Structure formats: C-alpha cells, structure tokens
C-alpha cells in the first residue's frame, strides 16, 4: 500500500464529512478532498497528517470559493438534477430537509473560525491539531469550541421555535 493510499483510507471519510458539512455539497466536498490528497502527494513529509489535511482542505475551500463560481454553479445544477431523481417517503424527506435547512442556517450563522473548529472537532481532531490547522493558540481552542457549540445550539433552537410558531399559526 502506498503512502497516499494509506492517507486516503485513513482520512478520506472524515475529510469528506467535514467538507460536506462545511460546503453543503457532497460532490464538491469530494472534489476538494481529492485535491487535498493530491497536494499531500507533493509533500515530502507531513508532520501531523490530520491537521495538515484539514488545514489544506480548509484553505482550498477558501481559495476556490473566491475564484471559481462557474464550476460551483455547474455542480449545483447537477446536484439538483440528482436530487430530483431520488424519491424518498415524503414525510421523512420533508422533515429531514427541514432539519437540514435549519442546521445549515445555524451553522452558517457561526463565525468562520468557530464553525471550522467545531467541524474539525467533530471529526476527532484534538485541540493541538485544531490549533495547528486553524493557526490558533492551543489554549484558545476550548473557548472557541464552547462558544461555537453554545451559539450553534441557541440559534438552532431559535429557528425551531420560529418554525413551531409558524406551524401553529398556520394550523389555527
């Protein structure tokens, strides 16, 4: 097994999940993950693989978001077509879609650094790795995470309340 295969096996799933949560598009996430592994190939040595991969993936997203809107539009178009071709039981589908939309909103409301730290932590990165990937001081990671979690949950709950109110009004 080559080194890149080992990297791929070990980290691809977590990296793709992290990127999917960050980007909201699985396809795009996989592309960025691929590119990240390609970058890893060009490195002679990587000290902390996981921190390095997450940092590079994060930077790729940042760079790409700046310059490549056309490709994203194309992906969004194709993703939409793909979505159409799936049919799930309607209730589940609607409920899940609503949950996902609220989660997306709540996550998007976080400050970028808080969001990234939280998503990385969810993929099992330790505080040292998060600090390295995001260029933070290790001592500030706990504070960053506690703030991110609190805000995420609070804004999600607000959205939930708003939805319940809407539904109540619609019913009466």
């Amino acid at each position: 097994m080559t080194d890149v295969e080992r990297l791929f096996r070990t980290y691809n799933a977590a990296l793709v999940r992290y990127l999917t949560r960050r980007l909201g598009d699985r396809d795009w996430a996989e592309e960025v993950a691929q590119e990240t592994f390609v970058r890893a190939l060009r490195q002679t040595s990587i000290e902390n693989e996981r921190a390095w991969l997450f940092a590079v993936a994060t930077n790729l997203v940042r760079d790409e978001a700046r310059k490549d809107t056309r490709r994203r539009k194309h992906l969004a178009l194709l993703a939409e077509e793909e979505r159409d071709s799936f049919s799930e039981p309607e209730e589940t589908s609607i409920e899940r879609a609503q949950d996902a939309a609220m989660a997306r909103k709540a996550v998007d409301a976080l400050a970028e650094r808080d969001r990234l730290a939280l998503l990385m932590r969810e993929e099992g990165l330790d505080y040292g790795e998060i600090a390295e990937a995001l260029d933070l001081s290790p001592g500030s990671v706990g504070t960053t995470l506690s703030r991110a979690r609190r805000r995420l949950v609070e804004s999600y709950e607000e959205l939930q309340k708003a939805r319940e109110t809407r539904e109540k009004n619609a019913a009466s």
Partner: protein
Amino acid sequence: MQHPEEGTIHSWLDGQLPLTEAAGIESHVAACPTCAAAVAEARGFIAASSRILTALDDAPRGVIPAAAPRSGNRRAMLRAAAAVFVVAAGSFVVLGRTGRDGSQFDSVATKVTVPVTENESTVNESGVAAITAPTVSRVEMPPAGRDRMSEPIVHGGTSAGRPSASDAASAPPRVAATTAAKSPADMVAQSSARFEQRPPVMKRASPEVADYSVPLPDPAPAIADAAPASPEPRLAHTDSAGGVRRSVYEVGAGQTVTLTESPAESMQLSAVVTTGVATEPAAQSAPRMERARTGAASQAPTRGSAAGAAPAPAPPTAAMMMNSVSWVEFSTRKRFTLMGPFTVEELRAIRVRLDALKTQKSKKAP
C-alpha cells in the same frame, strides 16, 4: 479553587486537559453545584451540536450517479446520459474491464480530437454519438462510420459485430461478443491497434450489481477493488491532438483507462448539459449503457426502436457501466475527466493513483 471557565469545562469534557488540571476540575465540580450545572449544560451543548451537525450529512451529491437508476426511471437515465456526455466531452474513456463470469468481448477505444464546443451538433445529428459523446464522434473517420464506431464503446464491444443494431435484440450477447472481436472492430479504428499491450481477450464485467449499485460505505474497499493486482497504473499509450492530450493507462489486469486533458476554457458545460438533456437521442442511447453493463442485449432497445417504439425498461439489476469523475487541476486550470466501467469511488481511487504516479515521475525527472 476558582470556578472554571466555560472553555475549560469544554476542554475537560473533550478530554483535552492535562491530567493534573483535569483532576482539579473534577474535584471542584463534585463540590460546587454552580459548576456542576455548568458542566451539565456544556454536556448538553456538546451532544446537541453533534446532533445538529449530523443533519448536514445528507447533502446532495452530484455529477454521475454511481448507483443504477431505478428500473424504468427514464428520466434519471436521461440525466445520467447527459451527465456522462458532459464529462466525456472533457476527457476520458475507459474501456474493457475484467470480470468473473467468463464471457468475452473486445473493446475499442477511440479518440477525442474535436473541441467540446462542437458537441451540440453531434447530439442533434446522432443519438448514439450523444451518449458515447464527443469521445466517439470525435474520431477521424468518414461520417458513415460514425455510428458504428460509437458502438464498441457503449456496448463494451458486444454489438460491434452486427450488421445493424436492430439485430442485436435477438442475438445472444455471447455470440455478439465473439464476432465483435473480429470484423468491425478492426474497421473501427486505428485506435484498437494502439492497445496491443492489453490482453486481446477480456472478460465481461461481472453482473454482480451489488458492486456497483450500492454506494460504498467506506472508501477503503474502493481502493482495494480498483487495484486488486497492480498497485500502479501503467501508461500504455499517449498522444495529443488539437490541444487535447490523451493517455491510456492499464490499471489492472485487462483494465484500461484513457485520460484526456484539455484546457478548462474550452468547456461550455451549461450549454452541453442543456442540449444533452433536451435531445431525444440522448434518451435512446442511455439504455445502451445498461446493456454494456449487463450484456443483456435482448433487454435493451435497439436503434430500430428509435423510430417510435418505447425503449424497454431497464432491467432492475442493471447498473451503469460507465462512470466518470472530472476535475480541474487547481494550478493549471486544465480539465481532466476519468471515465470508465468503475464506480465513482473506484475512479476517484484510480485518480489518486494516477496522481501518485505523476508525482513519482516528476520527482524522478528533475
């Protein structure tokens, strides 16, 4: 001891504090109701945020579906066809795949030579060309040879031996495969001669749909599947024309991949997608891919059916034979597409291996 800050509590709950500090917090929390409440709250936040984030994992995925569309789902098939068309336009053809059921066919690669922007006319004048797309229609051959030439790719070569496509409906796939290895395949191209490094006889892809229609839960098996024998793709052939560079790799015993790279600027994706979806021939050609996958020639619609008969529904077990992944290299902005009889995951794994190869070479080169 002072009440620990919220951040410290999270660090502690995350198991990220040094042992001595953690012990201090533990004893404090045990004795301090305020902090015990803060810890309980923090636990709640940690659990809730994990749960909220899980909802994001259902994000849509895109380009080429790895799984087989549902039986009779013509619309999905049409889209898949259009999508394959799009990526194929960019770059890559893979032909030939080793399977396990012992049947045989010969496959033929053709060449991408014409800029992608010409695709629209191709779609309109030839439905078959639409699905095998630019890859096929680009071959430098007289127009009369076009449709025939397109078949080996779409069908994995099984139909190439037929005088007309409508005969295929009754021909047992096995027979067709045998003839394919000889006659029209020869005419089909100069390009087949380029594959002499490949074993002349290849097994058909296995009909075990599970391999293809179920998304792999983990990327690891994809690598294992894609590279059972040879850890490194081997460059079998390369050429370039019209600014498009094409390389053929062997990625395992009897499995070949063709990589074409073209300038990203030549792609007009949205135009191509629209044309592909809107054009009827694309729908007609879609089932041909299923046939390639299953070898069930009798189940697939023929060219004769294009005159009016509705296409037969896809067999429930049919899966897409051709998948593709495409990407733009960040540094050069060149567009690459990898297409072949693999799952999307497998193709991604192959891409990584190709990149590994490239990197190794460039390290040796200087």
